[in-house]
């Protein structure tokens, strides 16, 4: 009986796959041309994140890496053209993080005035305070910080005189995670005029759930140190609020929530296209983010061909994501 049911199920799957292919072809024929990059839209995302879904079943080959970085370089140009202020680039495995030097070189080439020096920096964050609890959770004298494992690059040319003064190195023992490779190109200073600024953050799975654990470790350590000062408070006195955590994770130099996340698959196209997944994108920062997913074009009814062109993020998809975002309504619970 089970074999019979399984056979029927496989038949349903075959019908489903065929229908999905035809539907994908039909949609491709009938889809509307998205607006140009710089077209006036009712709203554009200030902060865009792109999640690249790499083919983890295969070792990363040259074609995939070429397509990945080509997609990144194109995205930078499109963001600048569309007036997007922040671009976050994510892949689970950290291929982009490891190859961040390539992105930096590309930016140096695009904007020769940018300082491309590299430094390991950790930016201090405001110590959290809790308004919700009777007891004070964390003393303002204690530094609490979380390494978010982000690499930040900026396309805006820095003011030469102030550049170094921003790059303060403040590392705290016990709170940083080994393997940190954080560097910040000089951030927004008083540059009077110039091309619109685009801040680029490169992150990987390391910036995901682990950062909440790092925040917890950091808070536990500071609380432990304070035991003697605060007349041995009991563990039950420890309180943390959403605002506290938000300051740590999204504070001035933290990683803010994107307005729009575009999921791009680098896998060879198949039909039916699998539903989107967030692939470990930081959970704290995805609360109200619009999620855009445009499946890869189906190239034909036969076996789908790959190749770098098929894997690279195309401008049409990027523009379609902007169009979709401009039409989205935000109700915020109301």
């Amino acid at each position, binding site marked *: 009986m089970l074999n019979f049911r399984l056979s029927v199920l496989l038949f349903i799957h075959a019908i489903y796959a065929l229908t999905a292919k035809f539907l994908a072809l039909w949609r491709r024929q009938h889809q509307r041309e998205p607006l140009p990059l710089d077209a006036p839209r009712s709203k554009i995302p200030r902060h865009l994140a792109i999640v690249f879904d790499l083919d983890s079943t295969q070792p990363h080959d040259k074609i995939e890496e070429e397509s990945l970085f080509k997609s990144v370089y194109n995205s930078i140009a499109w963001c600048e053209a569309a007036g997007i202020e922040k671009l976050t680039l994510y892949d689970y495995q950290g291929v982009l993080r490891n190859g961040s030097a390539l992105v930096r070189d590309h930016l140096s080439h695009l904007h020769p005035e940018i300082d491309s020096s590299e430094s390991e920096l950790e930016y201090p964050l405001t110590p959290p305070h809790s308004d919700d609890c009777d007891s004070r959770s964390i003393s303002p004298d204690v530094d609490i910080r979380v390494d978010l494992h982000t690499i930040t690059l900026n396309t805006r040319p820095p003011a030469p005189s102030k550049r170094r003064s921003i790059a303060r190195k403040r590392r705290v023992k016990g709170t940083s995670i080994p393997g940190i490779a954080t560097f910040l190109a000089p951030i927004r200073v008083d540059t009077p005029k110039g091309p619109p600024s685009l801040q680029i953050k490169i992150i990987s799975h390391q910036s995901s759930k682990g950062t909440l654990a790092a925040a917890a470790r950091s808070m536990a350590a500071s609380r432990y140190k304070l035991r003697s000062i605060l007349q041995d408070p009991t563990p039950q006195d420890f309180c943390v*609020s*959403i605002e506290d955590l938000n300051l740590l994770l999204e504070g001035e130099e933290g990683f803010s929530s994107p307005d729009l996340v575009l999921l791009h698959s680098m896998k060879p196209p198949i039909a039916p296209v699998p539903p989107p997944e967030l692939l470990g994108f930081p959970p704290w920062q995805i609360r109200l983010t619009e999620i855009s997913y445009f499946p890869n074009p189906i190239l034909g009814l036969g076996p789908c061909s790959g190749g770098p062109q098929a894997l690279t993020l195309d401008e049409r998809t990027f523009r379609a994501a902007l169009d979709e975002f401009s039409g989205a309504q935000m109700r915020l619970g109301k």
Partner: protein
Amino acid sequence: MLSYLTDDFYNWTRKVCRNALLKVLAAGPVPLHIAFVMDGNRRYARMNHKLAQQGHTDGYETLTKMLEVCYYLNIKCVSAYAFSIENFKRDPEEVNALMRLAAEKLEELSQHGSLLDQYGVRLNIVGRKDMLPEDVQVAARQVEDMTRHNSRAILNLCMPYTSRDEMTTAVQSAVRNALKSDPPNLEITEKDIDAEMLTNLAGSPPVDVLIRTSGVKRLSDFMLWQSCEDTQLHFTPTYWPDFGLTEFIPMILDYQRKAWARSSL
């Protein structure tokens, strides 16, 4: 009289066909945990010239129907976003109506012979229960106590819930546990936080599929921690009260393709 018989026959045939189809689907792998964001009740009501309250009542009917489908498919756990902490910002009249509906339906669920009884479902209210009105809290406690020993399936009703609130509470609990241990073990890991998530405290498996209706493509502070890694996300334009097998079956087929692809690796 004849029309009653015809209707009965039609309904009976429909149910037989539906159950046969579900049995076929259950021959393949099924998700362990499905989460629903039941969005679009009010827009459905507006579209059908009904009161917002009626939209929510119709939405509850859909939830009952989908729970039956899920448990028939042997899906171990279903989570439903019933009320966000942010929803308290809505018109007080609508909030009161929603709370009355919650109290009424929770009482209904606690009756013998209810859906929970029939399928051996344990009900958990996930979220800031202390923010609920007293009568809803009483009804919630009653149904939670009554179903505590049910072990065949789980229903998490998330109300009033936001994921950031859940993550913050989990971090707070993990820090307290670390400080309480003797000697203090301050090396809090992702697993320690995960263990403190409300859904995990309630014994729920990882979320395999998250479904949001009404065409909105965001998570709106729901299960962010649970669904950011290995969860298939479905955003369907259908309003929640209209959601049914036509939308649901392709989602199960998609999950099965993923499960088969993974097992063939």
